[in-house]
């Protein structure tokens, strides 16, 4: 069909880790001037495939081809020479180096063996202009927000003038504006004949941007086809082998009139003078652009960062908890966004992770009952659908299952209010569905659920109300009837205000 050889291709590659096959005879071909989507649930092998294509890992079987010729020993350095650039999901930046030094890292221009700062400045500026990064180039990357760092990461890839650009979930920490800049940029690069491999869990982005799709499921390729004539639900079917219609559970009102948490003039971190009532039996969504103070709101309520308030009631007790143990005792539970660093202890067993909050509640010198722990853990695993040996370290689980463990550990304590920080970020569709179901069930059981999310559809379909946060204030409280993606996004971007004033 296409006469030219693909710029970069994998032919029947396989890879196993510790005897577990992660990829089985997968082929993919990246053509110039095409945005190629790579879809699959977490643990389907997407990241491994990227690492093979970029030389970070070597395949056990099969071959990587550049310009139609097999490469015997692919390394990151070789990939760079061949014009392959990767925007990794885990940022590859160094906080203490400046933006420019990060962008040029590994491919610095030199003069007399020294780093050529003038040349670097010119080229880094050009790359930054492409992605709309206007901060001075001398700022250390450590001073930037997560979203801006992601843009630096993208600029770093562009700096290498790639022929093949691989992006692994580039938008997961970007704001709507930044995402728009990126989308336009990719369109332009495609026009210039660059081959792009695009990985995202956001199907609307994929539908808008990509022409071709490869779908991975359990390490095998289940589809390799043009995106023309497919819709989002068709894609999800390819990924999970099931209809997506029931991604979100049926919404049923379960909200009561009593307040679980009520605060007046609440300030914590970036949040200033917030009045908020969280009712029992509701799912309260918290939306807005990334980094407007949403996280501080949750952490402040949870007592994990200092907070001030004029008056507060938390599950019947007056005053803020002011500390995590007190918050737990008042029936609050918090599930952090960064499950690898904050949510779990990756090298410890799944059981230990599930039992951790229980340890905090035991008298310090009481002997543990391993049998009781095991029974509780088994019950939790069955309840949440976590399969396999519970003595494995938590890092052996896929992202979605890790998130389930992070949730599960609070369940034995029957929390009255759950504070969830982006619980479905980077989680596969199937696990998302299970988590959504759980959240609605919690609400139906009379718990208060606070769902901070960067995924607007889930705010719309799952929540009773959504508080939109901008610059440390709740700028809109959208009731169920008024919920739509447009309403949330326009409130988040400040487009709403003029209407209200008028």
């Amino acid at each position, binding site marked *: 069909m296409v006469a030219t050889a693909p710029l970069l291709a994998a032919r029947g590659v396989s890879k196993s880790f510790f005897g577990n096959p992660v990829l089985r005879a997968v082929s993919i071909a990246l053509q110039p001037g095409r945005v190629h989507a790579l879809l699959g649930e977490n643990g389907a092998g997407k990241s491994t495939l990227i690492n093979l294509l970029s030389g970070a890992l070597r395949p056990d079987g099969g071959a990587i081809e550049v310009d139609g010729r097999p490469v015997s020993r692919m390394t*990151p350095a070789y990939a760079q020479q061949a014009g392959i650039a990767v925007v990794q999901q*885990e*940022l590859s930046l*160094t906080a203490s180096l*400046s933006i420019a030094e990060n962008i040029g*890292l*590994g491919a610095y221009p030199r003069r007399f063996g020294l780093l050529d*700062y003038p040349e*670097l400045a010119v080229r880094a500026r050009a790359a930054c202009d492409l992605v709309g990064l206007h901060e001075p*180039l001398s700022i250390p990357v450590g001073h930037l927000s997560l979203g801006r760092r992601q843009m630096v990461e993208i600029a770093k890839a562009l700096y290498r003038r790639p022929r093949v650009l691989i992006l692994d979930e580039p938008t997961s920490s970007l704001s709507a504006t930044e995402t728009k800049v990126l989308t336009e940029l990719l369109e332009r690069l495609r026009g210039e004949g660059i081959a792009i491999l695009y990985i995202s869990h956001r199907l609307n982005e994929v539908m808008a941007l990509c022409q071709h799709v490869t779908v991975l499921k359990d390490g095998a390729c289940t589809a390799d086809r043009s995106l023309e004539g497919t819709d989002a639900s068709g894609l999800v079917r390819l990924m999970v082998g099931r209809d997506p219609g029931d991604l979100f559970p049926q919404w049923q009102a379960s909200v009561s009139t009593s307040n679980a948490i009520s605060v007046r003039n609440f300030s914590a971190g970036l949040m200033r003078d917030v009045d908020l009532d969280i009712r029992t039996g509701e799912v309260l969504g918290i939306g807005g652009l990334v980094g407007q103070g949403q996280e501080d709101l949750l952490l402040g309520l949870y007592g994990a960062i200092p907070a001030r308030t004029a008056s507060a009631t938390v599950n019947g007790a007056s005053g803020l908890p002011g500390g995590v143990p007190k918050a737990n005792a008042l029936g609050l539970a918090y599930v952090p966004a960064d499950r690898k660093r904050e949510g779990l202890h990756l090298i410890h067993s799944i059981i230990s992770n599930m039992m951790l909050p229980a340890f905090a509640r035991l008298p310090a010198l009481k002997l543990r009952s391993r049998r009781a722990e095991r029974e509780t853990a088994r019950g939790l695993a069955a309840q949440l659908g976590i399969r396999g040996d519970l003595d494995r370290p938590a890092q052996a689980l896929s992202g979605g299952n890790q998130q389930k463990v992070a949730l599960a550990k609070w369940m034995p304590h029957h929390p009255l209010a759950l504070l969830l920080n982006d619980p479905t970020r980077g989680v596969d569709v199937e696990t998302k569905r299970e988590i959504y179901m759980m959240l609605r069930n919690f609400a139906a059981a009379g718990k208060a659920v606070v769902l901070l999310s960067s995924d607007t559809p889930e705010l719309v379909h799952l929540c009773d109300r959504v508080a939109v946060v901008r610059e440390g204030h709740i700028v809109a409280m959208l009731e169920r009837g008024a919920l739509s993606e447009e309403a949330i996004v326009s409130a988040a971007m400040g487009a709403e205000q003029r209407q209200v004033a008028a």
Partner: protein
Amino acid sequence: MSTVASSRQAGALYWPVQLRRNVGVRGLFAVVMAFLVAYGFLFPGLLTASGFAKFTQSWFPLALVAMAQAILMLTGGISLAIGAMVSLGAVIAATTMTGPLGVAGGAAAVALTGIGIGGATGFIVVKLRLPAIVVTLAGSFIIGGAALLILPRPGGAIPEWLSDLLAGNTPAAFVLLLLIVLLWKLYLATPLGLSLYAAGENPVGAYRSGVPVDGARVAAYAISGLLCTGAGLFVAAQTGSGDPVIGTAFTLNSIAAAVLGGIGFLGGQGTMRGALAGSLLLSLMISVMFFLGFTPVAQYVAQGLIIIGAVAIPQFRKVQQ
């Protein structure tokens, strides 16, 4: 025309980058300046040529080992063999320089030993992926033993003219230090040198960016070794002879100076100018307490408290934010 534009860009990148690196150490610089002024008032001799020479000479070896330690800490490593390397450098200098090798040959032997042992340590740590703290602890026994084999008791000699040149009434030590700092700036302006930060803070990311992570780290160990044996040579010149255990105190003092200077233990955090300022501060503290008649025990206690305080202050500030 384009070269003009790009050279103006140079001013717009290199120096701002350098200035921003100052941000973290401004407070430290202020404290060091305050100490220097106080010291100048207490001992006006500092302002005479010979007073200045003596003062920089007492600082010089500590400055070198602080740099040696800081380089390793920037890669995410550490060395407990610094003191042993200083001793080895001292005994090699004291046994070779008056022999057939002469001063030049002796200095070359000292330098090659430093680079060789440092590089070998780095190779073991980096390629075999062993923890630096264990490898260098073991290395400190081996290297210290080697120093004792070469010179079982203090002895040997350094040519008198060399002692006079390095440790006499000339500011040679200060000039040497400026030269070393300049060389370090040059090294940091090479791709390999700057990669140190990336290799230390985010090795996986650096590797995927095409940085020779292992090479940068091994090179850091080699440079660190060279600085240590060089400090040993200087100490031998100061005393006029070799002593196989003279370096012992430098191991912990080098860590103290680096930590005072804001070098983090996790790799990639801190600056060399900070480490140098840290070593100067430590050196000042030691001399001030010595002149004020502190007993050695009181000196050590005070030194420890000041270091904890210096590390704690930035933390407090962070918590307050």
